[in-house]
């Protein structure tokens, strides 16, 4: 294993994911593709390299192995497996009518866990709604997250000891406050950082553009993780943008930016750790474009067969972030096939236990709907509350 972490400048990408920018570059007069997630036509400023350490066959390029401890690697592996087990159970629970609309994240586990793994309790995380693997890592119980997706208010409240924003439903709206929190950290001389997650669709939002600029100007310790999964509901990258890498946008704001194979957990771990180290040293923000793919539905209310060719999905099955990591872990002698099965079984049991706890403890609290809006509740609301309670009494609702 090499002793130094790998960073952008000295990194030679091996095979970038198909659909990510190919070797073709320049101003070829090829019309943009009308289907498919990614542009294959580079416009300018030319090809953006994509950091990859662990390729889709589970091999690490010679001399590129990062120096993580086996505990770190196994912990991260387990978190990815747990995330997938949670995802799969949530889908079942939704189909059985136990959940509201839910946004699956199968295939994006390396992005989710990689973006938060080096953070401490004093660092902050601002998730998007497809980040539950990361939320679990940060200390949100699965029981709490089940409540969130099942429509219980308390699911949105960050646990008392967790410095995270709840996710934002409005696309990209979580980004400006995340930058503001980083600005406050710098002013308070705290050696910490904020990670904020958003997607390729969110990157079309003005709020995200403004946030990058604020962070750059203020040298705020924030890491922008754009989890580019190719699709914003039915809108592919080709309709979202005319550039082939979202990472180049950061450069326009003076934010050091890197494109990473988002299905490569080792590359994600390295990129995020380096960005966090820089941020905590006072060197300002970083943009990480993590290239991955939305294997499943936008949400459970979505039917992708209407708008995308499922043939596009198949190649990404071969790039599964968990599978390739497990091949490598086995080759390193850290986890064999039986070990993988054991982890999977444990994670599934843990998810089922969380489901049972959720069923046990989930409680609608209709008498609390006025209680959290203001610190100092106005009289007008107190009166509306009295009126509302009368309705509940009439209906016999506790």
């Amino acid at each position, binding site marked *: 294993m090499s002793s130094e972490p790998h960073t952008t400048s000295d990194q030679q990408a091996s095979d970038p994911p198909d659909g990510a920018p190919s070797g073709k570059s320049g101003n070829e007069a090829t019309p943009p593709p009308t289907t498919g997630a990614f542009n294959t036509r580079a416009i300018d400023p030319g090809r953006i390299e994509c950091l990859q350490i662990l390729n889709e066959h589970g091999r690490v390029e010679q001399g590129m192995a990062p120096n993580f401890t086996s505990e770190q690697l196994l912990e991260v592996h387990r978190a990815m497996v747990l995330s997938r087990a949670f995802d799969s159970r949530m889908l079942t629970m939704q189909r059985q009518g136990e959940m509201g609309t839910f946004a699956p994240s199968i295939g994006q586990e390396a992005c989710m866990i990689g973006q938060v793994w080096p953070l401490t309790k004093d660092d*902050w995380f601002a998730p998007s709604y497809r980040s539950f693997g990361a939320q679990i890592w940060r200390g949100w119980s699965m029981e709490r997250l089940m409540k969130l997706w099942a429509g219980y*208010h*308390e699911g*949105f*409240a*960050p646990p*008392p000891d967790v410095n995270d*924003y*709840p996710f*934002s439903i*409005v696309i990209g*709206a979580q*980004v*400006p*406050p*995340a*930058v*503001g*929190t*980083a*600005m*406050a*950290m*710098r*002013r*308070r001389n705290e050696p910490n950082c904020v990670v904020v997650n958003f997607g390729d669709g969110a990157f079309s939002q*003005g*709020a995200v553009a*403004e*946030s990058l*600029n*604020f962070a750059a*100007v*203020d040298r705020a310790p924030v890491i922008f993780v754009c989890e580019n999964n190719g699709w914003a509901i039915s809108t592919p990258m080709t309709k979202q943008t005319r550039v082939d890498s979202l990472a180049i946008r950061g450069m326009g704001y003076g934010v050091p930016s890197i494109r990473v194979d988002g299905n490569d957990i080792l590359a994600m771990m390295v990129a995020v750790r380096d960005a966090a180290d820089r941020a905590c040293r006072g060197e300002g923000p970083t943009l990480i474009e993590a290239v991955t793919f939305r294997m499943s539905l936008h949400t459970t209310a979505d039917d992708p067969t209407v708008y995308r060719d499922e043939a596009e999905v198949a190649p990404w099955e071969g790039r599964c972030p968990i599978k390739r990591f497990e091949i490598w872990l086995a080759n390193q002698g850290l986890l064999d096939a039986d070990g993988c099965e054991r982890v999977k079984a444990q994670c599934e049991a843990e998810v089922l236990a969380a489901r049972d706890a959720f069923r046990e403890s989930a409680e609608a609290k209709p008498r609390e709907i006025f*209680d*959290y*809006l*203001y*610190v*100092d509740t*106005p*009289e*007008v*609301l107190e009166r509306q509350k009295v009126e509302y309670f009368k309705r509940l009494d009439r209906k016999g609702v506790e």
Partner: protein
Amino acid sequence: MAQLTMVEALNKALDEALAEDDRVCLMGQDIGVNGGVFRVTKDLQSKYGMDRVMDTPLAECGIIGTAVGMAVHGMRPVAEIQFSGFTLQAMDQIEQNMARLHNRTQGRFNVSMVMRTPFGGGIRAVEHHSESREAYWVHTPGLKCVIPSGPRNARALLKAAIECDDPVIFYEPKAVYRAFREEVPDEPESFELGKADLFRTGADVTLVTYGAMVRPVREAADDLADEHGIDTECIDLLTVSPMDTDTVIESVRKTGRCIIVHEGHRTCGVGAEIAARVTEDAFEHLVAPVRRITGYDIPFPYFQVEQHALPEADDIIEAVRDAMSWD
């Protein structure tokens, strides 16, 4: 005790807040070296440094969104939006985060911040510089909205807004900024938010107003008393959300007549809400219909004609005399 303009009184309040509480910081476009386009933040950057009095990029949504994030992490930002016409650029962050984050997190996060912005017409400004859109803030659950009317209450209310644990929109009537001077006490003063100021007592008609319209209401009240022998009771709301309509209702129960005066659009404006509450809670005391003297439901007119579109004392006198004709 000094004689200050509203601009100077606001500057005093900000200066005091910055000195008293190191969590307080100011942010906005051109507020630092330039002291703000109206000079409300004059000399504060040189006194408190660039990190506490921040010149921000030109991006309203970014200003409010990052202010929310700073508030969540224990600071008390006071963000200036240069003109209220530009606050709608920030509506995304006002609605999604400033107004809701406390509720979304079940009270875990406080958004103790103030958005200051000048509003209203009468200064011969270009388009988008004269709007009165306070109804948006009243209509958005989670916000409080304060509108001072003179130097003394501006200073005391801004102090209270900064000290408030809930997010506050502080709407400054720019026609009053330098219109007159008033004695402002040297010692700290903080008014309770959500309390109206009944500044004139009278038995005949209740006049309800706020902001720059307090002046024409005063003028009309004097004229009505002197020329027509009509005693008006005048209420300056000072906070439009939450609105102290208890003071209004109590007054209307006495006078039986209510006229509301504001610059903002009429339909679904603040006056509409007051009229509804008066009807709900003082119906049996009314002897005349509740009337509204307001801006019209049109974009604020270009400045060569703006003086005709703003409510003035004569409108109020006419409406009061009409109300008195009901028995």
